[in-house]
């Protein structure tokens, strides 16, 4: 019986879900993200929004991270879409928050980007996260969390009418809300600084290990093993 329980526990785990886009930002030389080809899965990154030209998202060859091109640019930023054909409108956008920064020095993850004026997104740094939607260019805050540790895997989930944010990818969402104003798959995305708030600055905020996982038609499930 003990062996059956042990076997059951070992085999219990999340169902295998397909990464539809995956990028660890590996580059030999300094490269703007808009000119970078995803290193694992995905076709390209496309600029959706540019706020001032003093700061863009850049991969520095020495660190292989999604980083600001300038650490002193104020009221500037960029949002890029992660390009691939998305199998469904239900997916998780996961990234590692590697930079440490506070106040108005922020990074941004996005989902269901239809265009620059229509998307869900999360603006975050060490202080916490604000979950947004942008519909017909109007920004609406849906919720906030507090405190995100360095190197946390953070996750923005769009699954049917559930929009959720997880500060630490522990399976418990810090923010979860029902919303159906943007239902088409669109694209996931990543950005930094003044994407939502025009006075946000480029500084030390960085991302790594950007992975978009398709959730298919329904909610995430688990494999269940029956042991006699």
């Amino acid at each position, binding site marked *: 019986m003990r062996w059956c329980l042990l076997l059951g526990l070992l085999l219990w785990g999340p169902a295998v879900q397909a990464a539809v886009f995956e990028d660890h930002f590996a580059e030999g030389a300094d490269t703007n993200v808009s000119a970078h080809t995803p290193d694992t899965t995905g076709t390209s990154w496309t600029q959706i929004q540019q706020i001032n030209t003093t700061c863009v998202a850049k991969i520095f060859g020495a660190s292989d991270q999604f980083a600001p091109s300038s650490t002193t640019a104020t009221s500037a930023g960029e949002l890029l879409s992660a390009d691939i054909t998305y199998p469904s409108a239900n997916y998780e956008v996961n990234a590692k928050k590697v930079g440490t920064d*506070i106040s108005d020095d922020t990074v941004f993850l996005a989902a269901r980007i239809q265009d620059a004026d229509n998307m869900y997104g999360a603006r975050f740094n060490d202080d916490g996260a604000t979950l947004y939607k942008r519909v017909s260019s*109007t*920004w609406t805050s849906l919720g906030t*969390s507090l405190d995100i540790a360095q190197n946390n895997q953070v996750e923005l989930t769009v699954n049917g009418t559930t929009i959720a944010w997880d500060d630490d990818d522990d399976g418990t969402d810090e923010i979860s809300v029902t*919303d159906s104003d943007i239902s088409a798959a669109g694209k996931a995305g990543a950005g930094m600084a003044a994407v939502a708030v025009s006075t946000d600055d480029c500084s030390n905020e960085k991302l790594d290990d950007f992975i978009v996982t398709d959730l298919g038609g329904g909610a995430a499930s688990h494999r269940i093993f029956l042991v006699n």
Partner: protein
Amino acid sequence: MDRWFWLRRWNTRVTISLCAVGLWGLLTAPCGATQRAYVISAITGTGSGDDPQRPMIADLRDPGAADRVLNDDVDPPVMGKPPYRWVSLMPVNPADGKMLHTWTLCVVSGEDLSALQSAQGVWILATSQANEDLPNFRQRLQMTTLADLPAARRNRIKQECQDRVGLTPANDVTLLQIVRLLGRKLHLDFEPERLSAQ
């Protein structure tokens, strides 16, 4: 030495490590007790990125939280209390992104919810006990009917429901059903467990 000796020894080490981690967590945990509340809030904001549409509770500060840097662009940095953690149902008109309603249902979480009580445009439907998590809070609301409340509070809830959804609930309606009733006015798919702020 029997065949399970190393496994037992490894188990002992794991147990001691977990106890040490737990003790460290207790010693370093914040002193405050987190409380949660279901709140009806008026909405503010023009919808620009700098002034997004948001519930008015988003601008309140948690008096029970520790001070932190709010603005590091000036010298010395501006310190102050952080906002509450919150989540809110915010349906908008797809044509222009503007709010469909003048009010919203929120879950608010913080160390000291007293700022909610005196805030303009904010009405507290129910407040959790200290450190009561959301699932337990909802369970308690499921077991509490309007008849269990003092008359003044019961009548206020009935009046709010009448004003916002055009229905006056009977005395055997639970507080969780009130939450669902108000939420479904804002979104047809609403269920209380799908609105959470930790």
